[in-house]
């Protein structure tokens, strides 16, 4: 159950700086890394972690995301105890996983489960960029694939929030193959005529961008989210020119026809709820 996922934050005042931008604010007061606007953390959370000054969308943990979206008390988590092995016997990998488990209170970079949005059943997967940068290894691939299979069994829509640096290097080509694994499952979901909504959040890059994130029946993104396949620096090195500031942002993708909409966090639940409604009640 989702309730067990929540952690009490330590209560001492720390002001996040630009450097720890990835981290969710923990102190009593929080300073926006974009516009330096200072907000009471409690207020910031009530505002779904969106800065009132500049609308900057702070990264959300999987727990916070689920709480913001799923009707209270309806979430059941799947495969919460699934953990990575160390197939390539990478030094430090096991320790790094263990560290992230302690830090995030989740066992891997995606949380999956079933729940309701305004009373309608959905199957959900939420990636968490705090865990190994949200990278996809065997567990992320397997959990998402199983979630899709649950959606097929229960004939529910499948909704995914992506947040990932791409494939997990420490699992080598096994991580690459998770792109194929999730894709065969998505093909079956689509074949059954079931709805798939992808919401790309900051950041969605590499192998995650080049697999399930980009093939929703609806592709959405949060404002300013970084979305792309190749890294900015690698592209700049390859083409020997500087890239525009908005390159690989959600707005850039929207302009280039890669997204259906960019959705502000305050509109997210309402939009998804309406779409799910259109797809469940509107079916002939």
């Amino acid at each position, binding site marked *: 159950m989702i309730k067990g996922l929540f952690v009490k934050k330590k209560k001492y005042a720390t002001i996040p700086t630009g450097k720890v931008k990835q981290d969710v604010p923990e102190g009593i007061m929080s300073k926006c890394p974009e516009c330096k606007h200072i907000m009471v953390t409690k207020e910031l959370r009530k505002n779904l972690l969106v800065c009132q000054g500049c609308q900057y969308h702070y990264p959300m943990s999987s727990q916070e995301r689920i709480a913001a979206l799923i009707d209270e008390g309806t979430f059941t988590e799947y495969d919460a*105890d*699934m*953990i*990575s*092995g160390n*197939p*390539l016997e*990478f030094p430090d990998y096991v320790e790094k996983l263990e560290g992230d488990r302690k830090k995030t209170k989740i*066992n891997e970079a995606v949380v999956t489960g079933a729940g309701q949005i305004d009373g309608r059943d959905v199957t959900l997967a939420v990636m968490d960029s705090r865990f190994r940068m949200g990278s996809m*290894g*065997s*567990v992320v*691939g*397997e959990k998402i*694939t199983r979630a899709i299979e649950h959606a097929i069994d229960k004939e529910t829509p499948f909704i995914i929030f992506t947040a990932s640096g791409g*494939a997990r*290097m420490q*699992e*080598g*080509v*096994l*991580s*690459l*193959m*998770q*792109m*194929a*694994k999730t*894709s*065969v*499952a*998505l*093909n*079956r979901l*689509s074949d059954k005529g079931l709805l798939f909504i992808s919401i790309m959040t900051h950041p969605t890059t*590499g*192998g995650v*961008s*080049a*697999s*399930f*994130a*980009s*093939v929703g029946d609806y592709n959405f993104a949060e404002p300013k989210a970084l*979305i*792309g*396949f*190749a*890294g900015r620096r*690698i*592209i700049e090195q*390859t*083409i020997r*020119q500087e*890239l525009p500031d908005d*390159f*690989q942002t959600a707005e850039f993708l929207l302009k*280039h*026809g*890669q997204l259906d909409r960019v959705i502000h966090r305050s509109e997210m639940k309402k939009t998804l709820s309406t779409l799910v409604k259109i797809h469940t009640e509107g079916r002939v």
Partner: protein
Amino acid sequence: MAAELEFERPIHELEKKIAELKSFMDEKDIDLTDEIKRLEEKLSNLENSTYSEMKPWDRVQIARHAERPTTLDYINYLFTDFIELHGDRLFGDDEAIVGGVAFYKELPITIIGHQRGKDTKENLRRNFGMPHPEGYRKALRLMKQAEKFNRPIFCFIDTKGAYPGKAAEERGQSEAIARNLVEMAGLTVPVICVVIGEGGSGGALALGVGNYVHMLENSTYSVISPEGAAAILWKDASMAKKAAESMKITAPDLKELGIIDEIIEEVKGGAHKDAKHQAELIDQVLEDSLHSLLSMSKEELINQRYEKYKKIGQFGFVNDSIVVK
């Protein structure tokens, strides 16, 4: 003359020495037959040991060899009446991927593959075999066409990866790759993939969701190049040799990880030593694979692909001591 590979240097030195002795013998009229015979035996042993104990980095060198046979070379040997088809009908024609229709032993098929160049000029035209979105979309168009006319599909994989460029991102590199993965999963015709050179990341996988995936003995398949991995892991691209070993990117590695089906034997020293013979070795495996798939129904083909990929990965559970595969 093939460019010399580092690990082959002792062989080439010995070959040179034997040649010298032979010409010395002719010139000076001295009988060195025994000595030459001894060295030739030594050469044979050295070749056997060198080529039977190839290190991952040696295989990377062979996989990247400028003269390694490409998709078009194999098409020439394996298929008849090949007609190349161009363009994605949306933006352009990406020559980093070639495709078309042909016969494989009287059976109409579709063949698609990455295409490197063999010299600088051709490499520029083909962008070193690194596709843009239109390449993947051309591939998908040809796959859907094959499906419509019930033709099996062969995919030859040989790319360093998707091209990391501005235009590629603007035109939806991610979506193009992702779309191929999902669509290939659902194809109702047999799909057989062979990694013939480098299988670089998403750019390779975009032609790689098949009922069978085979690798040539000296090809590689990886999530990131050894140089890229080294740069990330040790902040030093020159550690690529070490990365090639720890990342498990060779055909034997992938077979062990349960990712590929067959390792296709290569001619001694690598496919570039005898492309025609190499094509024959590929031919045997293609024929067997195709034979076993032709008896399957459309649904069986899709389900076989599903089960194949569903199995890939290694994970466990919090209270397990054993990691299940």
